[in-house]
C-alpha cells in the first residue's frame, strides 16, 4: 500500500485513476440510494449491460466508446422505463431480453470492428488505470448534471420512489419523473463503467448505498454515506491491487462486496439485539403494570 501512495505522487495516470474513482462515487452514492430504496437493481442491471451495444457501435464506427455508451444508456433507460410503465405483463422477461440483446449487439459490433481490435475485457471489467485525462471533464459534467437535477427535484423523486400511486393523485407526472430517474441512473452507470466495467457496475451502484441503509434512515444521509464509502472503498481497492498488479475493477468489487456482507451480518445482529431488548422491556412493563 505504501508503494501505491508513493507512486500516486509520481504518476499522472494514478492521479487520474483516483480522480475517476472520486467522481464516480458521487454518482454511485446519490443514484445508488434511489436504486436501493426503489428496488430497481434489476432495471439498473439491464441498463448497464445493454450499454455494450452502444459501446460496440461506437467502436465499429470509429468513435470513442464512452461517447457511444452515454446515448446507449439513455436509450436503454427510456426503453426499459417505458416497458415498466406501460407493459404490465412479464416486465422482468422483457428487461432480461433487452439486457441480453444489448450485449449481443455490442459483441457483434466489436467482433466486426475494422482495424484495431478493441479489448472487450476492458469494457466488461473496466480499467481505471487507462482512463484518459480528458474523460475527467466529461465525468465532472455528468456529476454536475446529476447533482443539479437531484437538488431541484428531490421532493418529486421522493414522492415517486416512495409511493407512485399517491404521487399520481397529487398531480405529480409520475411517468416523467420515473423516466428522468432512470436516465440519471443511466448517466451514473456510464460514470461507473470507467471504474469497474459494465458487468461489475451493479455492485458499485447498489452495495455502498445498501450498507449506508443499514445504519441511517433518510435518503439524504444514505446518499452522503454511500458517496464517502464508495470513494473510500474504490481508492482502497485501487491501492490494494497496485502492489501485486491485480486488475483494479474486480479488486474494488471484492472489497465492496466483503464490506457489504459483513455489514449485513452486523445489521442483523443489531436488529435481533434491539428486538430482544424491546421484548425484555415489554415483560418488565407487563409485570409492573406500566404502559
Amino acid at each position, binding site marked *: 500500500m505504501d508503494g501505491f501512495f508513493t507512486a500516486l505522487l509520481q504518476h499522472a495516470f494514478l492521479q487520474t485513476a483516483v480522480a475517476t474513482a472520486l467522481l464516480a462515487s458521487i454518482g454511485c452514492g446519490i443514484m445508488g440510494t434511489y436504486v436501493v*430504496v426503489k428496488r430497481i437493481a434489476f432495471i439498473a442491471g439491464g441498463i448497464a449491460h445493454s450499454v455494450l451495444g452502444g459501446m460496440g457501435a461506437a467502436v465499429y464506427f470509429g468513435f470513442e466508446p464512452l461517447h457511444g455508451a452515454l446515448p446507449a444508456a439513455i436509450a436503454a433507460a427510456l426503453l426499459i422505463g417505458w416497458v415498466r410503465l406501460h407493459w404490465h405483463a412479464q416486465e422482468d422477461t422483457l428487461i432480461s431480453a433487452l439486457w441480453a440483446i444489448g450485449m449481443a449487439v455490442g459483441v457483434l459490433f466489436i467482433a466486426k470492428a475494422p482495424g484495431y481490435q478493441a479489448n472487450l475485457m476492458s469494457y466488461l471489467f473496466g480499467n481505471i488505470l487507462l482512463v484518459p485525462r480528458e474523460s475527467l471533464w466529461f465525468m465532472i459534467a455528468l456529476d454536475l448534471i446529476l447533482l443539479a437535477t437531484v437538488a431541484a427535484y428531490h*421532493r418529486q423523486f421522493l414522492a415517486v420512489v416512495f*409511493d407512485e400511486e*399517491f404521487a399520481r393523485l397529487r*398531480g405529480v407526472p409520475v411517468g416523467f419523473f420515473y423516466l428522468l430517474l432512470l436516465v440519471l441512473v443511466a448517466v451514473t452507470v456510464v460514470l461507473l463503467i470507467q471504474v469497474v466495467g459494465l458487468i461489475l457496475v451493479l455492485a458499485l451502484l447498489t452495495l455502498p448505498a445498501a450498507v449506508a441503509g443499514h445504519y441511517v*434512515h433518510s435518503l439524504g444521509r444514505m446518499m452522503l454515506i454511500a458517496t464517502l464509502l464508495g470513494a473510500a472503498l474504490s481508492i482502497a481497492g485501487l491501492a490494494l491491487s497496485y502492489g501485486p498488479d491485480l486488475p483494479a475493477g474486480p479488486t474494488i468489487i471484492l472489497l465492496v462486496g466483503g464490506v457489504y456482507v459483513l455489514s449485513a451480518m452486523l445489521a442483523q445482529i443489531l436488529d435481533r439485539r434491539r428486538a430482544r431488548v424491546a421484548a425484555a422491556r415489554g415483560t418488565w412493563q407487563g409485570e409492573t403494570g406500566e404502559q
Partner: protein
Amino acid sequence: MKPAVDIHALNFSYGSVPTLSGIDLQVKEGEFLGIVGPNAGGKSTLLKLILGLLKPQSGHINVLGQTPCAASRLLGYVPQYPSFARDFPISVEQVVQLGRLGLDRNSGQRNGKWHTLWPGRVSGADREAIRHSLAEVEAGDIAKRQIGSLSGGQLQRVLLARALGGEPRILILDEPTANIDQRMESEIFDLLKALNARMTILVVSHDVAYISRYVSRVACINRTLVCHNTDAIDGNAIQELYGEQVRMIAHSH
C-alpha cells in the same frame, strides 16, 4: 348545489368478469357516506374509479364538476394497503409533507397542471400545515419517527394526516380501521365525524353495523349498488346484500 361525486351508468371490469355494473351514485357536498359490501364486491374498485386511478369501460364519473383525474388534487386518499415498503427510510414528517405536493408553497392554493414540474422546497407554510395535520390526528409526538417503527394504528393516523395535508374537499378512506383495535377504531371515526364538518367523506368498511352510527347514508355494493339511509338498515337489507348465509346477532352498543 353540484354534487361532490356524480356517477352515472358506470360499468367496470378487470378482465372478463364484471366487477361493477350499472352503478348510479350521487354524493352531496358535506355528506358522510359509508360504503359496505362483501369482500371482492367492488368497494375499493369504486374508490379507485372516483380517484381516477382506474378508468371505467363505460359510464360517467364527475368529481366536483371535473373528471376524476383533474379533481384528484382536491381529494384526500387513505388506502387500505399502503403501496410503499414499510422499511423505506422516511420519517413521519416527510410522509405528511408529500401530501402537500401540488399545492402552492406560500399561499396553499392549488396551482395549474404543471405546478409539480417546478423544483420545489418545503416552505414555512408547508411546515406549519404539516404540524397542523399531525396535531389534528393526534400524532404530533411521532413526527420524527421512522414509518417502519409505527404500530398499525399510528401508521393509519399518519396516512390520514398525509391526506389532510393536501387540504382536500373530499376525503376518501378504504377500510381505515381494518388493522387496528376497537378502541382506536372509535377514536378514528370520532375524528372523521369532526372532519365531516368541513369536508365530504367517503369511507369503505366491512362493518355495516359499526359505521351506521357515524355515517349519514350507506351505499351497499356487491357488483351493483343500493343506497340506504342509515335508519333504514335492517335484517332484510343486510341479507339482500350478503345473501342468505349471514348470521345476524342483534346487538346495541
